[in-house]
């Protein structure tokens, strides 16, 4: 198949790429750009491990063609931290023990990050609904939900919130 020249804006940087029309965004991220943080787990848009953001909205990169992503601002898990400085959400995932095997983590973070950018103080039900497109086989979700709820908003009663003194 003939390759086409496209430009994708990924984590704030324009990237010129040669892609096949049927290449998924996930394939391009992982294989061409070595951004392997986004994971392929179910390959059919169910598990959410490949979730990235396009213009701030969570999108499954395994079901999105790279061609379709032109002209949007793409953010992947690699773009969440500011250099070595983690986002509040990332730090909260660490502090609350929300990470086990880690395969679902990047997608989980991208869905949660999108939620938090729209809703300041989501309640338990809202968080669980927002994360229900992301399957985690290890954690039973409790610690992930807690991590999202407490991201950047430490709760005094929570033993795992790092309250800054």
């Amino acid at each position, binding site marked *: 198949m003939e390759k086409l020249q496209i430009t994708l804006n990924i984590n704030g940087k324009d990237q010129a790429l040669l892609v096949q029309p049927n290449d998924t965004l996930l394939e391009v991220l992982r294989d061409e750009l070595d951004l392997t943080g986004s994971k392929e787990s179910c390959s059919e848009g*169910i598990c959410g491990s490949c979730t990235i953001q396009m213009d701030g909205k969570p999108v499954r990169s395994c079901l999105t063609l790279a061609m379709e992503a032109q002209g949007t601002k793409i953010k992947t898990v690699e773009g969440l931290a500011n250099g070595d400085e983690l986002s509040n959400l990332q730090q909260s995932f660490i502090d609350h023990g929300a990470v086990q095997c880690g395969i679902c983590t990047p997608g989980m973070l991208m869905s949660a990050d999108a939620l938090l950018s729209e809703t300041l103080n989501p309640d338990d039900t809202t968080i669980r609904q927002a994360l229900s497109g992301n399957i985690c086989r290890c954690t039973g979700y409790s610690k992930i939900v807690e991590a999202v709820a407490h991201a950047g908003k430490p709760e005094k009663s929570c033993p795992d919130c790092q309250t800054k003194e």
Partner: protein
Amino acid sequence: MSDYNIIGKRMPRVDSRAKVMGKVRYSADIKLHGMLVGKIKRSPYAHARILSIDTSKAENLPGVKAVVTGKDTEGVKWGVFGYTRDQQFIQTDKARYIGDEVAGVAAVDEDTALKALDLIQVEYEQLPAVFEPMDAMASDSELIHEDFPNNINIHVNIDTGEVDENFKKAHYIREDTFTAPEESYFQAEPYAVVARFDEDECLEVWCPNGGPHMKSKPLSNSFKLPLHKVKIKKIAIGGAFGGRSEICPADYICALLAKKTSAPVKIIFTREENTIATRQGHAMITTHKTGVDKEGRVLARDTTCYMDGGAYSSTGPIATTVPFLSMEQAYRMESVRYNGYRVYTNKPIRGMIRVHGRGFACGLDTQLDMIAEHLGIDPVEMRLRNSRQPGEYTNTKSLVSSCAMDETIHKAVEKSGFKEKWGKLPPFHGIGIGTNSVQTGFPMGIRGGSQSFIKFNEDGEATVMTGVVDNGQGNDNMVVQIAAQELGLLPEDIHLVSADTETTSSDPGSYSQVSTFVGGQAVKNAASNCKKKLFDVAAKVLKVEPDTLKAENRLIFVKDDPEKSIPIKKVVRISLLNFNSVNAEGGYWPKVDMKREWVSNPYGQMCEAFSFGTTIVEVKVDPDTGEVEVLEVTASQDVGKALNPLVLEGQFEGSIAMGGQGGMLTEYHEWHEGRCVNPTMLDYKLPLACDMPKINNIIVESIEPKGPYGAKEAGMSIAMSAAQGYSAAVSNAIGVHMDSFPLTPDKILTAIKNKKQQDTAK
């Protein structure tokens, strides 16, 4: 005050920073120069003789670098035990399930590799196939493996004697049969393997594993390479749950393709392949016959279980035994007889899974509830009358040293309000309890022990080497925590080298719940030996006896006079100036009965410790739809000692999701003539964030005398008891003791309807 500044603390995991940044590499993320894409050709038939394979068209396709079939193999058969060697990694004579490996290709890209698979022409002669264990045993058509009559792969017989006599003495006897179909792991990471031969002709392999040494041995056998030439490399692993314990034919095929092409090859499984061509949980048909005295104490039990083992042995003898072991550990029985049959069928291969024998375990607890109801005893009292006590022996002669089973029951009962709720909840609202026990390790012969090496660097930091593998549960952190505690360092001072067959010693692996108990203990012993060397040097400098010293926060100080101290870094440097490097080794070998054998001698000390768990579940059932809403789950486990409550709670919560919410409500496979019809995440229903109930975690510490800091198995007793608690709660809600699991809406509606008819008839 605790004696420990790191052990027992809610310490965030050392591997989580790289994981939240998307920097961690798993097998599928590996890229090597000149790497090819590998794919596997699988049998489309459940049982078929392979008449011929023509690979010429595939080989001539541009971009194809190699095609391998059974002809390229040494014909070596794999089996976990000498008497279970029944599986070739590429089949030569016949295929035994839909998905059996018949050929492999390596090509420049995935499209080419897939095209090549289609061009491989295999001529088959279809054979009659069997899909259910009862049919398989009765079948008079061609055996699946000719040297296993009646297709019986494994028969485990345990008989402690006096069973028949005790049944005669029993006040009440029940016999009930329980069934559950297969379930799957659905690890988040689909199986992937990368292999290459390096310049020294060593085979290097990256793949998910439950213990790297379990991979290197079969590969060394197959390639006739010495063990030191097979290097299984450390790599992040995306979940195991029992499904990554053994060699996978793909490991061999990938390595064979790498050898033939002299290039690195990567095989990534599709989600469907991960379901059908790794392992699944066994389907089981279990009959428990139980006789009790007037007080409900079990006098005799006779259990027969038929397990659908699929096409090959896998961990057959272990798989056939473990459901029985959990039963005899959790509950006292005056006498017991067990006949476990693992039967070959033309279905995918079954292995160990987190809740191994859900139908067996849930059946057992359901029957206890039925007996309790007959005797007018409540389920809690019924369990307390039969629960395992410390200092007792199991029926197969394992001493149970630490055991706080009763405390887990009492605490869960109190927290959940069981006593206040039992019998008083509104219609279709129920509460149930499950209790179980899991072994901390299996007898594993020469691979039963673990050894660790520690070396200090001149900056006062330490490198810890251990064979312990992290499947995602947090074993890397466990090792770092133990080393830091023991050496008096901070976790960030520890550099971990682990799960790599080239650099780390043999270790039992993570699949028998023994990583902390054996591997962690080896690290503790190595660190303790290393610390002795530091103390000898520090004692001279501080002019005190070594046994007056303590190490903490990078300092060595006099216990009774903490002002008198010296930095560890300085001690290391003084030692080096005196021509002594600071390093040490340490190991741990559990004292199990080496004569115990799964089939030939199933008696003797199984392992050194057992965990005990209780889960109480409260549910509401919609009588119109049969749907179950889980209101609250209370999980309580005797873990010996919680090394890290933060990580431990994660194990409890994950166990409830897999064992209870998924395992008892939605997860099972459906079949059509040997073909799994729901191998993907779209069709197989896994629990989501919105499905999960409120969870109360209760950690009970019995301080196991032989465990590191008192620790033993942690988490799996919750997975097992959660399954039982879920089923008991649903049964309680609808007033029917369910005997077929999982409890899907169709079964629940049928049960409600039948009960209504029976009640009206009365």
